[in-house]
């Protein structure tokens, strides 16, 4: 049973400090509840099952990359909506073509993304 509250809860995992910090700040201002991690291992160990609505995952990360993290999170929480953030098109193409055919292109957000567009994408995910 998913515990529903008013605010949409977002998990952000990105190894870039400034990305997680700026996204956390701006999304909080726009009424989201945000947990942000720079370390994918830590993000996984602190993952709250059936808590988040959306996970925004960077792909190119040390230790556990975005796709592995996606698989592990999905194993724990099938209801969570996952969206990938990436600054490296080639990196995600390579992985997507190899193992993750089921992921549609809609699930990928290309960095840099403007705030309005990001909010639209999040609203679309929540439909």
């Amino acid at each position, binding site marked *: 049973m998913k515990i529903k509250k008013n605010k949409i809860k977002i998990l952000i995992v990105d190894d870039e400090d400034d990305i997680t910090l700026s996204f956390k700040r*701006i999304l909080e201002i726009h009424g989201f509840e945000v947990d942000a991690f720079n370390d994918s291992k830590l993000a996984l160990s602190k993952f709250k099952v059936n808590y988040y609505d959306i996970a925004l995952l960077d792909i190119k990360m040390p230790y556990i990359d975005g796709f592995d993290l996606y698989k592990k999170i999905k194993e724990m929480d099938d209801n969570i909506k996952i969206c990938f953030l990436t600054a490296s098109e080639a990196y995600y193409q390579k992985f997507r073509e190899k193992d993750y055919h089921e992921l549609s292109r809609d699930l990928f957000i290309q960095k840099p993304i403007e705030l309005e567009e990001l909010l639209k994408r999040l609203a679309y995910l929540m439909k």
Partner: protein
Amino acid sequence: MFDLKKRNVKCRFITEVTKENIAFCKELLKIAAVHHLPGLKGNFAVNENEYIASATMKNLQLLSQVVYSNSKAVVEQHNFFFENLWDKSISATEKIDEIEKGIVPEIVAVIKNPLEIKNIYFDVLKSSVTEIMLILTTSTVFLSEENDELMQSLIDASNRNVKIRIITPSFSNAKNEIDNLSQKNKIEVRRIESPFDAPINILVVDEKYSLIVELKNDTKQKFTEAVGSAIYSTSQPNVISFVTIFDTLWKQTELYEKLKDADNLKEEYIKKLRVADKAKDEFVNIAAHELRTPTQSILTFANLLKYDVNKNESIEAIYRNAKRLNVLIKNILDVTKIESNKLVLHQENFNINDLLTTVIKDYTRQLKKPTYKRRIKVYYTLQSEILGPDALIHADKERIIQVISNLLDNAIKFIEKDGLIRITLKISKGESPHANGYAEIIIKDSGSGISEEILPHLFSKFSTRSFQGTGLGLYISKNIIESHSGSMWAENNKDGKGATFSFRIPLIKTDLIQNSSGVSI
């Protein structure tokens, strides 16, 4: 017989002229027309009315056992025989001349007896003085029971300084045997790609003898079973034809080898182009990633400025990311300059110790800031073999600062949390009295070290062990140092923790005396 001449009787004589009977033949020529016929056996004499024959003669004396006839039919028959032999034979004068001048008689003979072919084959090989040309359309002879004898004949000839050239098909089942032979001896072997239509072996020796051997059964182990017939020739036009054929094929194989080399070269270029193409793609990907990440931060933090929260934090972040973009742009421009040989150095004389001290102080100040989350200590030591403050180098100051900063930034980046960086400046007079002195800067960190995977191509473009970074810094640094006639290298620390990066740059002055001192910052 001298009597005959006196009586003006026309006298003709056929014999085999040999070295041994030359004197006799010359005497004979005074009284008779003499012809030479090789292999002639027996004696007979014939005139208009009589025929007489004996088995052989001894000391010019007729033997007692003779055949005599004055029968018209017998006399006519033997006159006919004599005329036939006369037509087939050549002038004795010509033969005497050949023997006296050592001229080899021209022979073109078809030999059908395999044993005889084998004997001639090896006799001709063994008699070689200047050159052996061998065309093997198949490698039968190298795999036959006679292989040892063939090998030995060729090796002996090579030892006699006979020039040996062999043309053989590229796909030979005796490849190893032929390769061994050519490697160990002065024997040139060339391979021809297109298989020969006719299974023949051609042997030409000293441009005097040719032996064309037809192979009737290439699968046989014995030479004598494999060969069919052969044409042996000492006829110049004949032999020269085969020399020409051989030389033409030899040149063709040379062209073929060149063509193959060109093909290999082409393959190599294509491979290099592919590598370059891959590197270019990688560059675009990394550059795009490095452009997009700080741009994202700038966009979001700029947006945050609209709201009244943590304005200073946003401004600092925007500045930090703008600087990161600036570094990326500079790096890309530097790489472009390096690769097009357009890296311009603004060189001046300065003291490397002073420069290093200033750079390190800046870093130490940053690292000691209370806002800095990690604790990294920096130690600096000067070891000088040269007295005084004159550790001068002639270099581009900004570029040297860029290199030191790059190495220090890397050291800091790869220290996960807390750690230390030891920097040493060695001023050396050089290894030999005439060698130039040099300054060596050694930066040793206690970070995560260089992975084995990265180590071999550490200074290549895009070799990065970091998830944030272009992998251009070390490539640029090494190129800057090398353009100052210096060198740069790196290794993992022997104690297993961290890495040491060093570079060396020549000093201007070397004529000062030894001293050593240590300074800590």
